[in-house]
């Protein structure tokens, strides 16, 4: 061993300078990625010789508990690729307008002079309008100047507002949390104009409806550090290692602390690698497994042996002890009814809001009226809205009785439904202990929600009396739901595994007091029956006292992206500092109706079995149910009517309506008489169309466009690959059928820094600053810090920040309006019955004014009607000024706090805007907006946290201000978070506690502070008593199998032959992109396969002679995709993956199919094979937690119940 010498010689090593020069740099700037990602990672961006060179993760998150691993580093393979974009050939450097439009515009402007008239002349001419619509996506971009393009866009907006009303101007931008100011830029502009913002969380199908159902909460979950506190982690439909990359280490490290990890996933996923056990259950059938888990947990931990911790938890924190009426059914038995109301009892019939106050038995069988229910929330007297076990009438303490097993007057037969088999539900009769209660309306039979739950789960007890009924004989009895043996047929997983895991789960939770958790995500939430799968999981957590506990709980991570300083951000983002209410539309309903997807669908009962097939919400066509929801004020509807709002308002004025109430009555009357229709009643009527669409921070036409080809056809009017049949005709009751509209949108404007599919198909592309070129704020629920985006360099080439672009657009709008529309004018705004307002107790029963069952009364039986003043001639002035309504106080979830003193001082101390004789804090610069948000939010201003808790304490009658007392002096400024990410303060607007170095976990405040959940009972709900839930048979946790291929009908016009195979088509979040972002970078393309491949099973591939990397075409009635096969036994047979989300811009050849005009057809993106399917149960409203709020409630756009045909391409595809 002589020839290898260690070398010390400095002389011969002077060349080493070579690599040292490369590492040298000039500046390091903290920023992050404002992409639609829950990561929220702080990054250091390196600047070398004036150019952004690379980025590395920041490592300086404050460590709040030395016994928990720290948050370093955070940031994944996609984020670290971002520097590629900055100077790449994919970068949008200049404004672009498609030539077909630009030429017409220049010509029109020259001949008309007035830009509004010029735009009017173009959209008023069908031939001209169609000429640029047909050109969409087909090349022909021209570079233009900002000075030319902004006035055109402003003119389009003003013309639209004048002719059709501003509610035809639509904006879409996803998830604000990751770049709040950039989101707020567009939404503020649109709302000041009177435009509409589309929701995203539900449209992405990331909203878990089970969360509103059970907790009345959009989503509130633990930060990833809390995973480390867990001792049993079940990963369900989530691929933590792949999609929660920066958080994954907490999961892995928890194992070394002693946690067991079980991964439930049909494919051997990345995360399966770190599991103790991988449970390969069949895709979309997870609910069956978890129902059986619930069966074993109830049997062994609540019945055969009562675990005191679990038992106490159910009594105090769930609706389990609440009384449910048993209603006689037509078979001589009973069925579960609504919860027993105080208004029905003689003692309490005069109780204020008695129909929203519910009842339980005390241990001594006295009837008690618990505190903390909806009734106590909205009654005049404050201080009873809490979870103390205290009778709201007498103030006495009591112990809620969980079961009537030992206290029944009689044991009665109650019917339950088994939806496991195809076709109508199988009715099962089981016995339930009941007591008679005298009401003002005669004797009623009641039981507890817990007793119903046991019967629902098939857990038999010796109840004395009549013990007949259909009960499973044992765990091995597969004939009855929901036994371990029963679930095998759906999941393919052995009964013994359920039993073993349930025991381990229960024992771990018992010994650790609730440190079992479920990490859950899109893999189950994207199915049609997502709420049922989730509730089966949540039930297992509630039964074992795991919710609200560190190390325990329901941790849903997909798309939620918590915007922490929401109470100061929202008024800025939605222009509510100037005018309210904003127009906030749930995206799924909007796209389902306006992109005409409803036309291609049959009535929904084939897809969704129900209990009561006659109930008006449980039958018929989804589009009709949407109309019911709009009429009843459950869901919003924008554009509002089939004609301009100003026409309706003028009619009202003409009819003598002067007050808002009179206007409301006029509108109600017009609707009732069908003289006026909602746009969704007649979506193909040109009077109902949306007209202008702004897209920023997102890829609305591809990555998030469920039914992308429907969008191309009906929204854009350009080439598409849609083959589906229009099947709705003849099945509709309310929606008007007329010839389908194509090309509804006059103008589509995309703000982008990369040429993605949305940019490629838009009329106008405006270059935005990337995330390393602007100042902004970022928060997430995966960690508990707030940290900034910052400009490491000035916006490159001609790009501007989103805030600058919309600010300048506001300026041009104001300029043109000052000439053409100088006077303020009134606008009519309809908003649904809102959660966290008295609107949530508007409709104790479902009645339809459209059917004459009641009168249309705004705010009660229909939407709220408001009159809002618009001032276009001061649009820019308003945009840059923090308006007077902000000063009047801020609020969230109905809890208010005063900021008047802070506002006045802020106006003095900071840059201000002065116009029309008043001074306002200035919002002109991005950074100033960041500072305003930080200054007025309780999570970043300790004084305001203290005030908000004071306010919350008044509602609950308990003092919560100790949660903020120690941090009253804390203030975070933008400069502070530039120095180091700062931990958010505990506030009543979120349910976790960060005080004293605690890991944030959802619902800790509810459990520890006895603050009610914002639900009907104020507790977590097993039982949902709304009549529509009972009609659907979803009033209790249950299981409905995923709809079969026949019912779904994706392949009616798609040929299946011996060279093709039908597969279930899944689009899980992928490894090489965050949605479509990063997937087009050379970095990610290189580490994947130069394309987003089509993953399939090796034996399935073998049937078609497909070898790895062969070109394949994947198609169904919705469209066609071309890609290359990736073949592996890791993917089970019968399903396939195309990881979400592909663009059709990079590396996509032509398919073998030709377009009708003979031209070649480019392969689509992954959403070319999907469409939106809405489950109408989520459309209800005006009833406690089932009340609308933006991104909180409404049907999510599910997409996983989709089938495709795959075939090998016959020859090399053309380019």
């Amino acid at each position, binding site marked *: 061993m002589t020839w290898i010498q260690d070398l010390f010689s400095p002389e011969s090593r002077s060349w080493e300078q070579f690599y040292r020069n490369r590492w040298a740099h000039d500046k390091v700037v903290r920023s992050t990625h404002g992409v639609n990602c829950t990561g929220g990672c702080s990054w250091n961006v390196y600047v070398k010789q004036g150019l952004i060179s690379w980025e590395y993760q920041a490592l300086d998150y404050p460590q709040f508990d030395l016994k928990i691993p720290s948050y370093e580093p955070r940031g*994944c393979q996609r984020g670290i690729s971002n520097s590629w974009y900055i100077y790449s050939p994919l970068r949008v450097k200049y404004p672009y307008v498609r030539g077909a439009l630009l030429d017409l515009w220049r010509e029109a402007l020259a001949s008309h002079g007035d830009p509004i008239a010029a735009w009017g002349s173009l959209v008023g001419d069908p031939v001209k309008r169609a000429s640029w619509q047909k050109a969409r996506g087909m090349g022909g971009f021209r570079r233009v100047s900002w000075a030319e393009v902004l006035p055109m866009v402003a003119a389009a907006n003003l013309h639209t507002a004048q002719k059709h009303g501003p509610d035809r101007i639509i904006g879409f931008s996803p998830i604000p949390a990751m770049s709040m100011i950039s989101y707020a830029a567009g939404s503020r502009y649109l709302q000041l104009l009177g435009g509409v913002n589309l929701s995203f969380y539900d449209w992405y199908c990331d909203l878990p409806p089970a969360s509103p159902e059970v907790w009345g909460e959009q989503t509130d979950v633990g930060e990833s550090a809390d995973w480390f506190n867990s001792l049993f982690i079940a990963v369900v439909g989530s691929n933590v290692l792949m999609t929660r990359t920066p958080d994954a280490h907490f999961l892995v490290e928890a194992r070394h602390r002693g946690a067991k990890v079980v991964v439930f996933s049909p494919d051997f996923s990345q995360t399966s690698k770190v599991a103790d056990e991988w449970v390969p259950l069949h895709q979309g059938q997870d609910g069956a497994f978890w129902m059986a888990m619930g069966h074993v947990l109830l049997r062994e931990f609540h019945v055969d042996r009562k675990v005191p911790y679990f038992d106490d938890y159910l009594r105090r924190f769930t609706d389990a002890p609440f009384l449910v009426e048993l209603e006689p059914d037509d078979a001589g038995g009973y069925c579960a009814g609504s919860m027993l109301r105080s208004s029905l009892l003689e003692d309490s019939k005069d109780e204020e809001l008695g129909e929203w106050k519910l009842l339980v038995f005390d241990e001594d069988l006295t009837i008690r009226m618990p505190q903390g229910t909806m009734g106590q929330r909205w009654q005049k007297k404050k201080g009873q809205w809490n979870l103390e076990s205290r009778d709201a009438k007498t103030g006495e303490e009591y112990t809620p009785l969980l079961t009537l097993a030992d206290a029944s007057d009689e044991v009665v037969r109650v019917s339950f439904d088994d939806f496991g088999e195809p076709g109508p539900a199988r009715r099962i009769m089981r016995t339930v202990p009941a007591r008679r209660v005298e009401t003002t309306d005669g004797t009623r039979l009641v039981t507890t929600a817990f007793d119903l739950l046991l019967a629902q789960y098939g857990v038999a007890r010796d109840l004395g009396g009549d013990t007949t009924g259909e009960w499973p004989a044992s765990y091995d009895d597969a004939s009855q739901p929901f036994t371990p043996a029963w679930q095998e047929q759906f999941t393919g997983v052995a009964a013994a595994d359920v039993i073993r895991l349930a025991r381990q789960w229960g024992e771990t939770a018992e010994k650790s007091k609730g440190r079992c958790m479920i990490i859950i995500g899109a893999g189950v939430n994207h199915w049609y029956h997502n709420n049922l799968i989730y509730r089966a999981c949540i039930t297992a957590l509630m039964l074992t006292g795991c919710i609200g506990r560190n190390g325990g709980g329901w941790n849903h991570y997909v798309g939620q992206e918590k915007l922490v300083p929401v109470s100061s951000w929202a008024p800025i983002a939605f222009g509510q500092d100037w005018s309210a209410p904003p127009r906030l539309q749930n995206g799924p309903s909007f796209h389902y109706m306006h992109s005409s997807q409803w036309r291609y669908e049959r009535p929904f009962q084939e897809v969704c079995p129900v209990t009561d097939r006659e109930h008006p919400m449980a039958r018929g066509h989804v589009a009709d149910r949407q109309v019911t929801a709009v009429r009843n004020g459950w869901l919003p509807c924008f554009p509002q009517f089939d004609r301009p709002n100003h026409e309706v308002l003028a009619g009202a004025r003409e009819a003598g309506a002067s007050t808002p109430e009179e206007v409301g009555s006029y509108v109600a009357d017009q609707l009732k008489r069908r003289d006026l229709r909602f746009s969704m009643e007649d979506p193909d009527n040109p009077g109902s169309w949306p007209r202008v669409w702004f897209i920023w921070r997102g890829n609305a036409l591809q990555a998030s466009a469920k039914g992308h080809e429907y969008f191309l056809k009906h929204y854009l009017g350009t080439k598409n690959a849609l083959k589906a049949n229009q099947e709705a005709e003849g099945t509709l009751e309310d929606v008007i059928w007329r010839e389908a509209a194509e090309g509804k949108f006059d103008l589509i404007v995309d703000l982008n820094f990369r040429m993605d599919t949305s940019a490629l198909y838009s009329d106008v592309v405006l270059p935005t600053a990337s995330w390393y070129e602007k100042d902004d704020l970022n928060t997430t629920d995966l960690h508990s810090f707030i940290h900034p985006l910052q400009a490491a360099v000035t916006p490159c080439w001609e790009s501007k920040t989103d805030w600058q672009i919309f600010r300048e657009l506001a300026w041009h709008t104001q300029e043109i309006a000052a000439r053409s529309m100088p006077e303020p004018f009134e606008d009519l705004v309809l908003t649904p019955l809102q959660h966290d307002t008295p609107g949530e107790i508007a409709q104790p029963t479902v009645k339809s004014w459209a059917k004459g069952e009641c009168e249309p009364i705004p705010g009660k039986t229909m939407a709220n009607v408001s009159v809002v003043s618009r001032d276009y001639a001061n649009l820019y002035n308003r945009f840059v000024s923090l308006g007077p309504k902000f000063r009047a106080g801020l609020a969230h979830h109905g809890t208010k706090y005063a900021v008047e003193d802070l506002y006045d001082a802020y106006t003095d101390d900071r840059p201000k805007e002065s116009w029309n004789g008043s001074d306002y804090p200035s919002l002109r610069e991005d950074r100033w907006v960041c500072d305003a948000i930080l200054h007025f939010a309780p999570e970043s201003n300790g004084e305001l946290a203290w005030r908000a808790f004071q306010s919350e304490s008044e509602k609950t009658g308990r003092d919560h201000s100790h949660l903020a007392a120690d941090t009253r002096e804390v203030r975070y400024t933008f400069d502070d978070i530039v120095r180091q990410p700062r931990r958010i303060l505990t506030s009543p607007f979120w349910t976790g506690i960060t005080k004293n170095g605690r890991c944030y976990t959802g619902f800790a405040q509810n459990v520890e502070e006895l603050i009610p959940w914002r639900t009907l009972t104020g507790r977590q709900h097993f039982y949902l008593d709304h009549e529509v839930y009972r009609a659907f048979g979803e009033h209790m946790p249950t299981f409905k199998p995923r709809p079969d291929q026949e019912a779904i009908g994706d392949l009616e016009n798609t040929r299946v032959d011996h060279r093709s195979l039908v597969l279930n088509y899944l689009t899980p979040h992928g490894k090489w992109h965050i949605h479509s972002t990063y997937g087009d970078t050379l970095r990610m393309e290189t580490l994947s*396969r130069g394309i987003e491949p089509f993953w399939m099973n090796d034996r399935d591939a073998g049937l078609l002679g497909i070898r790895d990397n062969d070109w394949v075409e994947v198609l169904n009635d919705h469209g066609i995709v071309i890609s290359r096969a990736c*073949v592996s036994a*890791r993917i089970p047979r019968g399903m396939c993956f195309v990881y979400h989300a592909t663009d059709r*811009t990079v590396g996509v050849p032509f398919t073998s199919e030709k377009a009708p005009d003979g031209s070649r057809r480019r392969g689509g993106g992954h959403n070319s094979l999907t469409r939106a399917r809405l489950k109408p149960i989520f459309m209800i409203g005006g009833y406690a937690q089932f009340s609308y709020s933006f991104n909180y409630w409404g049907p999510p756009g599910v997409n996983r119940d989709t089938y495709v045909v795959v075939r090998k391409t016959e020859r090399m595809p053309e380019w």
Partner: protein
Amino acid sequence: MVSRDRGMDVRAHASMVFHLDKCIGCHTCSLACKNLWTDRPGAEYMWWNNVETKPGTGYPTRWEDNEEWRGGWEVAGNQSLGLRAQGKLSALFKLFYNANQPGLDDYYEPWTYKYGDLFDAPAGNEQPSARPVSQITGEPINIEAGPNWDDDLSGSPIYAAGDPNLESLDPHEREALFAIERMTMMYLPRICNHCVNPSCVASCPSGAMYKRGEDGIVLVNQDQCRGWRACVVGCPYKKVYYNWKTGKAEKCILCYPRLETGQAPACFHACVGRIRYMGVLLYDATRMEQAAKVPAEALVEAQRAMLLDPFDPVVIAGAEANGISSEMIAAAQASPIYKFVKEWELALPLHPEFRTLPMLYYVPPLVPVMGRLVEGVYGKAGSDGIFGAIDEARVPLKYLASLFSAGNVDVVRSALRRLMAVRWHRRSLEVNDVDPALVQRMLREAKLTPEDADAIYKLTALANLDERYVMPPIQREEAMAGEGTDPAEEMRQTSGFGTTLPPRRGA
């Protein structure tokens, strides 16, 4: 310089541990490296850091098939160690043609896309799309290979099945890895191993390669390299690359410019799985040759024996005598690497049978337990404990032994047993649902005290960057060459002035 006390020659080495149980397969490390070092013409295909899915064929394809590539060393009949690819005599001949040289097909042809077409496409009747083109020729390319082609392709009948390590299994075991009951997947991040006995250095005909004295980093002198590419063949890990633009070999430099300033290497910094540990190992250079020559099954033990106890006064004296700084000795004493490799015997060298004495080590991963399929219903196989037993794991120990211990299954089993014992021990502290006698037995069998187990837990789960990366900045002032009386002062005054010239072909 060289101390011969007790026949010892103490050297300090910057060394790394990859805790594979923690690896999440994200490739952030690869990109951290790519952005900084190989994002330039001639280096596109280089991935100084890459991550491989195992079972799989890796990058370059089937690099582990050393029967084909003939890198590293072999023990000749006379017990002498020789380069596998070339005897000294044939070296000159092989300069001009080397059959063992990987070609473009074994790597991949780097590509890009005609992104500009998306902006410039004229108005037409068809949607534009950016077509892939070769980065080398600029011509359209049909992409058929990449640097991470078999990512997550566990169960692939082509790639996973092509893993050379599967030769350690019998056909039945091999088959099982492609069935749902046994299928498995793990990740293997790889950089240059900065071997103590680097065959690349030994292969270089130009003397351009060397191992730095102060930290053991193996480098290619860009001024001196003549592009013979013998190093590419000589490295059995295929971690030396040839830059087609400059005509020089390049390889992982362990981010010495960052190391010298007290910053972890880029790949290390970026590792979100927090799987990487870095610190100093002291070793005895006189034992190198012997350690590289022992029979295969003894290689791991021999390599461990070469590592020195940094608290041993004799070792410290030897280190001081060799000019190793007090900071370096202190770092060796605080070294997480020493703990993982030597004290706890958890971390193992990658393919020690190449006999290069790699100085990067791997903690083998725990993987899920096996299942069984009965009439189409899946169930867990094996015992009912809260955690599965090592021998019930989905990855055969023989497979791991093929990777990390030249086939010695006992070495691998013992490491995994320790990892598992720590988990049982910690669970018994966290939640009282484990039989204490069982935990004691497991610790005993793993030869761990509860204190050891706690220490392993803390370093595995809790360690922050300053505990994972324990390296002193280099005292650069002692390693300058210059004209003046004090080269460091001169460097301070003059560095950065002048024009930077990249290496040129042939120069």
